[in-house]
Each structure stands twice: as structure tokens, then as C-alpha cells.
């Protein structure tokens, strides 16, 4: 192992240009992440042809750097404009944007950046030290475990409701329901398409998120008819002080663990990791009702989780040759073109490649801190422009971004419709967070429940009685019951108080 790191370091210092590659790729990644519609996947896919001129190690360094940078980049526009630049940053907007609106945009960006770097470094360390055993452990996760994990995340909806549990549940169920439009994941038949072939595309997640967050926000601000020019003033990005940092340390640790593990599960990635760790942050918080109003944990949780998921999703790629996320799937394609056969032997036969990438990802996370501050500052300059210009520009960016993603015009329609829908939800004070969690985790829960039942021959007991599944499901039920009990108790206290004051 030490030898492997030695040869990796020898490679890096023998090829000083590789440092330039890492610098370039991190900046490229942050830029792609921060523009809505240009996601990390696109950033990686566009660079693959350029890796032909490099050796495979340099090529993979380049792609890994983009992956690291883009995962943070999404949070910049999420915080400043409520427009998640990439799907995994959607969760960051839930508390990041409210904090920015309170005039603390710089603080929000700083927390996002610091959490991203900590999560990213945590994920990389897990990748360095634990890749083979983690990959093996992740194989124990079959459909029932995926289902239980998704359910655990969904049950947090009851805690997120803020004022009203009922509204939280209604919004969550709407999210779950809307996600079923399109092609059935198991039988491939059409659902709720009403014979309209364009609805086969379904309500896909990215257009729905961009609509409910960004477009709805523009609509709302247009409706307010006030000059909101000066709302976000403090945009000088500051990293959090040690005291602020220590206050979120438990959240950071919990989210990084969740992120690197969920990242290691094939088929679910940074977005799921961000939402589940947000759910957990709410669940374990002493003041769950504050989430959504701009609390530090609400930014730290998703940002550390989605960045640690980067390292996590490299685990099955390098240890087994199975990509842990959509971005790593594109990277796998890039490796194949270089004549490298991804598989369990990769870590033994291509030690230099693998360990150089480990070190490269480490460096990329540190560089991200340096460049992140600068780039966030440039982005923030946009806020000095009047909203009458910024608002329409955001709409245009959302439309082109959503279209650019799949070149599918139906997605633009979905985005516009979800914008109107998100606007309504806000007006009626239904929590967007619950809606989006339903939309993201619902399809995972549905698909894995049905896969698991096919495997278990529709024996529900066999499905639920697996140890990990059972623990997660019991935990979900307990948290649901506890959540309702807490609500009920608070409600009773309030009524008693009013009763005594009246009496």
C-alpha cells in the first residue's frame, strides 16, 4: 500500500502538468456545477474526448477533479438564486437560500464550501482506506434494503412539516404521486400518460426541481412587486469560524458517513445522499421546526453528504468495476476507451492509476476551497444587478439548462408546469422540502419494493425480515410515531397554555 502511494506520488511529481490538470478540472467542475442544466455528468462527458491525448491516469485525474468541483458548484446558484445548479444541490437551497435572503449569503456560501471540502475529504479517505470492504458490504444491500433506506428518508417528512404535519404529509404524498407518471419501472407499461406519448418522459427529477425551486421563486418575487435589490447584501464569502464549525460537527460527521455509504451503493448517488442526510439532520435536531428558515445544519448536512458521496461512488467503480452513480458510469466509459477493463482486478493491476486518483481527489478538495471562495465571489456580483434583469435571466437559464440536459423539449414543459405548481405550494404554505423528498425518494422506494417482492415471490414477511431492512423499517416507524407524539405534546401544551391564560 505504501509502495503504491509512493509510486503515485512519484507519478504526480514526475508529471507536474497533472497539478495543472487538477486545477483546471476543479474550476471547470465548479463552473459546470453552478450553471443550472450543466451538471457534472455533462462536464465529465464533454472532457472524455480530451482525455485521449493524455495517459489513462491523467485522464482519470481530470474527470475525478471535475466530479469533485461540480458537486460543490451546484450549491453556489442554489444559495444565491434558489436555483440548484445541479440536482445534488437541490437540498442545499432549502436552507441556503433563506439564509442568503436574511442577508447572510456570504456565510451560507462559506458553510457550503467548508462542508463540501470536509465531506469530500472524508469520502476520499473512506475510499482510500476502506474501498474493498465497503464495496463488499454494499453488496449486502438488495432491493429490500434500498426500500427501507428510502422509507427512512421519507418518514422525515412528518418532522419537516414545520407548522403543520398535515401539510407536510400532503406535500410529500403529492411528490410521491407525481413521480409515478411515465413508464412503470418493472413492467414498462404507461402510467398516467393518458395516451400522450410525450408524457412517457415522465416528471423527471431535474426539471421538476428547477421548476419548483427556481421558476417558482422568480414568479413569487415578480408577484411581490417590491424592489428586492438590496435583500442579499453580504456576499463576501467567509469560511465559518471555528466556533460555528464546532456547532455543526455532529451534523457534518453524520452526513459524511451517510454520504460516503450511500454513494457506495450503485444506482443511488449524491442527490439521494443529500436528501437522506437532510432528513436525518432534521430528525436529530433539537429544533427541527427551524429547518427551512436558514439554519447552518440545513446547509452543512446536504453539502457534506453530496461531496462525500463523490468518494463513495468511486468505491464500487474502482473496487468492482460497477459505477456508483451516473457520473462514474460516464467515467467507466472513458476508462474502457483507454483500454482499461474496470473490474475487481483494477486495484491490483493498475495500482499507480488508482492511488494517483486517490491523491488527486484529495488535492482537488483542497483546491476547491481556494477556488470556491473566488468563484462564489464572482457569481455573487450578479446580485448587484436589479432583479428585473436577474429574474428573466434565471428563467432563460432554467429553460435552456433543462433542455440541454436531455435535449428533450418535454422536460421544458415539465419545468414550466412544476414552476406554477411550486408557486401554488408556496402560496398555500405547503413545505417544498417534503414535496421534493417525496419526488426524489419515492421512485427509489417504489422500484426497490417491487423488485424485492418479485425476488421474494410476493412473500412480504421474507421481504421485511432481513436484518438491515428490519432495523431500518422499525427505525422509520419509531421516528414517525415519535414525531407525531412530539407534535401532539406541543399542541397540548399550547392549548393548555391558552386555556390557563384565558382562565
Amino acid at each position: 500500500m505504501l509502495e503504491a502511494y509512493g509510486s503515485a506520488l512519484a507519478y504526480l511529481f514526475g508529471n507536474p502538468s497533472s497539478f495543472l490538470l487538477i486545477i483546471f478540472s476543479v474550476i471547470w467542475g465548479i463552473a459546470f456545477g453552478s450553471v443550472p442544466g450543466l451538471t457534472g455528468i455533462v462536464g465529465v462527458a464533454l472532457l472524455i474526448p480530451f482525455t485521449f491525448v493524455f495517459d489513462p491516469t491523467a485522464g482519470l485525474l481530470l474527470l475525478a477533479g471535475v466530479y469533485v468541483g461540480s458537486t460543490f458548484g451546484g450549491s453556489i446558484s442554489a444559495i444565491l438564486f434558489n436555483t440548484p445548479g445541479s440536482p445534488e444541490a437541490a437540498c442545499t437551497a432549502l436552507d441556503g437560500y433563506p439564509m442568503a435572503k436574511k442577508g447572510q449569503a456570504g456565510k451560507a456560501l462559506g458553510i457550503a464550501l467548508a462542508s463540501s471540502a470536509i465531506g469530500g475529504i472524508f469520502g476520499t479517505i473512506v475510499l482510500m482506506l476502506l474501498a474493498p470492504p465497503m464495496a463488499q458490504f454494499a453488496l449486502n444491500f438488495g432491493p429490500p434494503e434500498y426500500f427501507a433506506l428510502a422509507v427512512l428518508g421519507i418518514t422525515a417528512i412528518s418532522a419537516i412539516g414545520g407548522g403543520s404535519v398535515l401539510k407536510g404529509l400532503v406535500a410529500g404524498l403529492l411528490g410521491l404521486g407525481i413521480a409515478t407518471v411515465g413508464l412503470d419501472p418493472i413492467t414498462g407499461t404507461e402510467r398516467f400518460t393518458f395516451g400522450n406519448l410525450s408524457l412517457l418522459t415522465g416528471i423527471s427529477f431535474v426539471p421538476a426541481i428547477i421548476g419548483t425551486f427556481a421558476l417558482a421563486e422568480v414568479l413569487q418575487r415578480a408577484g411581490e412587486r417590491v424592489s428586492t435589490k438590496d435583500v442579499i447584501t453580504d456576499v463576501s464569502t467567509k469560511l465559518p469560524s471555528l466556533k460555528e464549525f464546532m456547532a455543526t460537527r455532529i451534523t457534518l460527521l453524520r452526513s459524511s458517513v451517510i454520504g460516503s455509504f450511500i454513494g457506495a451503493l450503485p444506482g443511488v448517488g449524491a442527490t439521494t445522499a443529500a436528501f437522506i442526510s437532510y432528513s436525518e439532520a432534521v430528525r436529530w435536531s433539537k429544533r427541527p421546526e427551524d429547518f427551512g428558515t436558514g439554519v447552518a445544519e440545513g446547509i452543512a448536512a446536504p453539502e457534506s453528504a453530496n461531496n462525500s458521496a463523490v468518494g463513495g461512488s468511486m468505491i464500487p467503480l474502482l473496487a468492482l468495476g460497477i459505477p456508483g452513480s451516473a457520473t462514474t458510469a460516464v467515467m467507466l466509459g472513458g476508462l474502457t476507451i483507454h483500454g482499461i477493463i474496470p473490474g475487481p482486478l483494477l486495484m491490483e493491476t493498475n495500482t499507480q492509476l488508482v492511488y494517483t486518483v486517490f491523491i488527486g481527489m484529495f488535492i482537488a478538495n483542497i483546491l476547491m476551497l481556494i477556488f470556491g471562495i473566488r468563484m462564489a465571489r464572482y457569481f455573487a456580483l450578479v446580485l448587484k444587478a436589479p432583479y428585473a434583469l436577474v429574474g428573466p435571466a434565471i428563467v432563460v437559464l432554467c429553460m435552456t439548462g433543462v433542455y440541454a440536459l436531455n435535449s428533450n423539449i418535454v422536460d421544458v414543459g415539465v419545468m414550466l408546469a412544476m414552476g406554477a405548481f411550486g408557486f401554488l405550494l408556496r402560496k398555500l404554505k405547503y413545505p417544498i422540502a417534503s414535496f421534493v423528498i417525496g419526488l426524489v425518494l419515492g421512485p427509489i422506494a417504489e422500484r426497490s419494493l417491487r423488485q424485492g417482492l418479485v425476488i421474494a415471490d410476493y412473500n412480504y414477511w421474507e421481504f421485511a425480515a432481513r436484518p438491515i431492512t428490519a432495523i431500518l423499517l422499525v427505525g422509520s416507524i419509531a421516528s414517525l410515531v415519535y414525531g407525531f407524539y412530539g407534535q401532539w405534546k406541543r399542541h397540548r401544551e399550547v392549548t393548555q397554555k391558552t386555556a390557563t391564560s384565558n382562565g
Partner: protein
Amino acid sequence: MLSLKTIPTAAALAAATLLSAPAALAEDYPSRTVEVIHAYGPGGGTDRFVRAVAQPFEEIAGQSMVPISIQGGGGMPAYANFQQRRSDGYTMKAISPDQIIAHVLGRQDMATFQPLARVQYDQGMIVVPADSPFQTIEEFIAHARENPGDLTVGITGAAGFDDTAMGLWNIETGAEVTTVPFGSSEMVSNTLGGQVDAMHEEFGPARGLIESGDMRPLVVFSDERLPVLPDVPTAKELGYDVTLGRWRAFAMPADADPEHVAKMFDLVSQAVASDAYQEVQEQAALQFRSVLLGPDEFAEFIEQEIATYTEVLTALGLTE
């Protein structure tokens, strides 16, 4: 100045110029970028296929060929986009068994395509994890016949190519297995982790795990054994006619100019024969039965495929 009399002459002249234009163009066709629409993600198998052909194509034709990825909706948005474009010889579509399935299900119409060239032809396998109790395909079949539907086989996508291949397997062998649709990476992890008994996968993507000894192929769906897997029997030699494989091909619009079709096939076949393309094909382990088919042979092949897929999809109860 134009008098009334000269107008018809001018019009006739203009018409003549217009009519002769395609003929003149055919000689220097292609004179600009050729776009290839496909329904898969950038960096995926089809996207890489188009890029691999495009690289030598550019040198041979002097014009570039670019893949256009239009994803989602079971391939319908990509199909619609292809239909809406002008049939001028500069728009092609990368097609695969997915188009045949969409045709059989009544969503797309193969008659709207002019088959141009089938380039890649892959072969599927039934692969089990290393610790599977089944050492040979005979044991696998015997168990499946005694316990119909008990064995689970991971596949990618619902009601797609993999489902059809395994459906044909069920029909031909009577060794009925239950398919479980996954995303491609989840399919592999669920098979490795023993959540399902086996998976249906092509050699290229599975070879890393086969070479490391983590997975064992039991049977290959091809006419002949693969030279790299000399001990793995084909379904055909066991007496089951299951040779369905995933293929990748180019098509033009049905009303494409025949001269354009001939010229384009010539260019594509030169590109495919180039060392650059052959190298990429070998790296993806697609060389075993990827015989280039021209427009006529490919059209025949499509007819056979439609017949087979119709039979299987009807047996699966997916057609109306």
C-alpha cells in the same frame, strides 16, 4: 426588367436549377456535418459507438459526424425529433433492438427508417456469481424446469431488450426464470451480492468480473462459442435457438435519396474497416460477431428481428 412573358421562362429556369441541384450535390455529398440522433446518455454505449465511427469517418469523408443525445421517454422524444427533421441526408439515427421493440409495441414504425448499416452485434450471456450452486447450464436448466419461475435473473430495463432475450429463453428451453429489472450497475451489484440468482449481460461489460473469478458465465447466446470463453457452451449447441443479441446500427429517413444512401454506406463501411474503429471495437469486446451489414441485408435482418420480437413480446403479453 422582367416582362410577363419572361416570368414563366425564369420560373422554369429556376425550377430546372432546383431540380438539378440534388444531382449536383450528390457528388460532393456530404458537404457538411452529419448528425446522428440517439436516445441514450452521453458517454453511454451508443454514444461511444457513434463517436468511434465518427473519428475515422471525419478523415475519410472530410466532414464530421456528431452524436445528438435526446434522452428519456422510452426513446420517443429522440424518434419524434428524427421524424421532424428534413430528410436531406445529414440526419441519421442510431438504431438498436429498442426500435424493433417500440415497433412491435406500436410506438414507433420501422417503415420510417431506411436501414443503412448494422455495425455492431453483441451476444448476451447468463452469468452467475462465483458461489452459485450451479456449475453448468444443464444444472441451471434442470432446476428451472423443476421449479418454474423460482430462479431470478437480473436484467436492465423493463420490457426491453433483456426481457425479450430472457422471454425467448423461457419459450425455447421451458426452463422458466423470473426477470427482475434493474439499472445496469444495480443489476451487477445485486447479482454479485446474491440477491438474484443470475444476470443477463453481454461479455464486454462483464469481463472484468469474469476475469477476476467473481462471476461465471454459464451460456452464451451466439451461433459459435466465444474464442475468449472456449468452455462456455452456446444455447444453440444445446438445442435452443436463442441467439438474440444487442446490435447497433445506422438508419436514414425512409425517403432518403438512394444516392445518398449508397454514398453514406460506402463512407461508413470505410470508417468501420479502419484500424481506429477496429481498435475501439476490440477494447469493448464487440468483435466476435460484428459483421457489417449493408442496406439490403440489414433490411432483411430487421424483418427477421421483427418476426422474432413479435413472437416473444406476444408470448409475454406485452402486445395488444
